[in-house]
């Protein structure tokens, strides 16, 4: 695929090579190869069950936690295989953060939510400052600065999701994986998350799974279209949406299926 070779390996932060995942003999993704360029936002789109979340979860080894999941192929993170023996998934997950579909704050204070990651990872610095910086980065600080001790569950859904983003940012990841981060939110909260993604890619790489094509078009630089476990097309977002090379891509983005 020409678009893959268009990204030189040295500018790629993540690269999948013939990556396949099987859940209990049920193939989820097949032989996917793609490169994720550094400090860009990349969107994975496709109909439900196409394997986009599975692919995303390979990048921080979350699939390790799924019983019956078998992963073959390679995922290179800055040139080193994440699945090589001796690689600790715990360390991988600190450097490659994740935000989930439904906001999942811990039932603790706002402060403790953000401070949890740094604490368990042995952060040796000013924790309060780090918490504030992370909350500012997630555009939540102004709304919660006067009630950091309040339970995170008292926040609205959109605020909870931004808290989860702040929590992920607090361990200073190089990549942030987002699995349909706005699908449980209203349009205003969605807008805030999208603005956030746009701002975040100055500092880190963002990969976002979405089945909202407008969202993909708005926030991402590159888009990958997956269908039935296969990577159908991958390229600059504008190109993919205005001039898709594959018939299946065109059918999907014009709403003829999925």
């Amino acid at each position, binding site marked *: 695929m020409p678009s893959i070779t268009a990204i030189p390996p040295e500018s790629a932060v993540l690269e999948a090579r013939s990556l396949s995942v099987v859940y209990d003999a049920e193939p989820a993704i097949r032989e996917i190869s793609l490169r994720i360029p550094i400090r860009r936002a990349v969107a994975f789109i496709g109909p439900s069950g196409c394997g986009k979340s599975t692919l995303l979860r390979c990048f*921080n080894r*979350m699939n390790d*936690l799924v*019983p019956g999941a078998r992963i073959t192929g390679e995922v290179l993170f800055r040139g080193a295989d994440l699945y090589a023996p001796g690689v600790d998934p*715990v*360390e991988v*997950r*600190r*450097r490659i*953060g*994740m935000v*989930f579909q*439904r906001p*999942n*704050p*811990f*039932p*603790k204070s706002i402060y403790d939510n953000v401070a*949890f*990651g740094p604490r*368990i*990872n042995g952060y040796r610095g000013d924790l309060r400052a780090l918490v504030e910086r992370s909350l500012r980065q997630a555009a939540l600080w102004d709304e919660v600065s006067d009630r950091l001790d309040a*339970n995170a569950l008292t926040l609205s859904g959109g605020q909870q999701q931004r808290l*989860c983003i702040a*929590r*992920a940012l607090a*361990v200073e990841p190089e990549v942030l994986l987002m699995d349909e981060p706005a699908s449980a939110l209203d349009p205003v909260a969605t807008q805030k998350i999208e603005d956030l993604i746009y701002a975040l890619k100055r500092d880190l790489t963002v990969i976002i799974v979405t089945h909202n094509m407008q969202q993909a078009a708005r926030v991402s630089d590159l888009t990958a279209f997956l269908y039935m476990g296969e990577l159908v097309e991958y390229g600059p977002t504008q190109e993919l949406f205005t001039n898709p090379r594959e018939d299946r891509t065109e059918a999907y983005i014009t709403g003829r299926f999925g």
Partner: protein
Amino acid sequence: MSEGSGRAHAPGGRRESAALRTAGSGPPQDGAARFRTRTRLRRGIGLAFAILCVAATWIGIVALGVLLVDIWHDGGAWLSWDFITSFPSRLAERAGILPALAGSLWVLVLTACVAFPIGVGTAIWLVEYAPDSRWNRIIQTNIANLAGVPSVVYGLLGLAVFVRALALGRSILAGALTLALLILPVIIIAAQEAIRAVPVSIREGAYALGATRWQTVRHQVLPIALPGILTGTILSLSRAIGETAPLIVIGAAAFVPFVPARPSDAFTVLPIQIFNWISRPQAEFHHLAAAGILVLLVVLLGMNAVAILLRNRYAKKL
């Protein structure tokens, strides 16, 4: 104009309510013929069920109330500070319950100290660590079965293992270990359920931040599961404090004229003392037994109060 439209509307409304009343008869209208809604009947069934539930609740409350009043009637007058601070005696007027009360508290504390960590540890392993294998399922099934084994059997086990093989004698420790075995399955099952009830999303959230399995369990899963674990533990301890049979089997004494001072001492417990008094022919001792039951109930209530306090403290922290 407005009058006309108002008149035009009224018959329509009437026709609709007529259709509702005569649902099932007449020409099919708005699907009315295809649904036999029978709203009245459905509401009636709902009401009947609610009444049944209230009745069930009251049966329990009334039975308990009658029991309490009866016991209070029998033993209330015999309940005094002297009764609580005296040793058992051949003379009913001078007999007290102190050694049994102390023995029960000793056994209770030791049982909790043994059963809680082992039970919660087992539950954590089974839910969080053990692979979902045939072996794991066999263990699960057996734990569930063990919860149903008669307590006398645990007494025989305790007699063979703790009293004889480990040569602990007829001590508080042997009794506490026996009761710990007895309640372990219940604690394990309750703790497992509480741990399983913690949403997967919480675990994933912790793992995604680079938490190890232990950090995830320790900082996120256990705090959320703790109220449920505590409830199960307290309920099973309540059962342990009322157990008589296994302690009789391992040879807890019926007559203990001293307050046990260490786990290796001989002991008796409240239920054994109560049973001992009830089985005497003199009526005075039956009153003593009733007073003993009241003491036992107060201990139980105290335990449950502690449980509720602990639970609220942790619930508030969450």
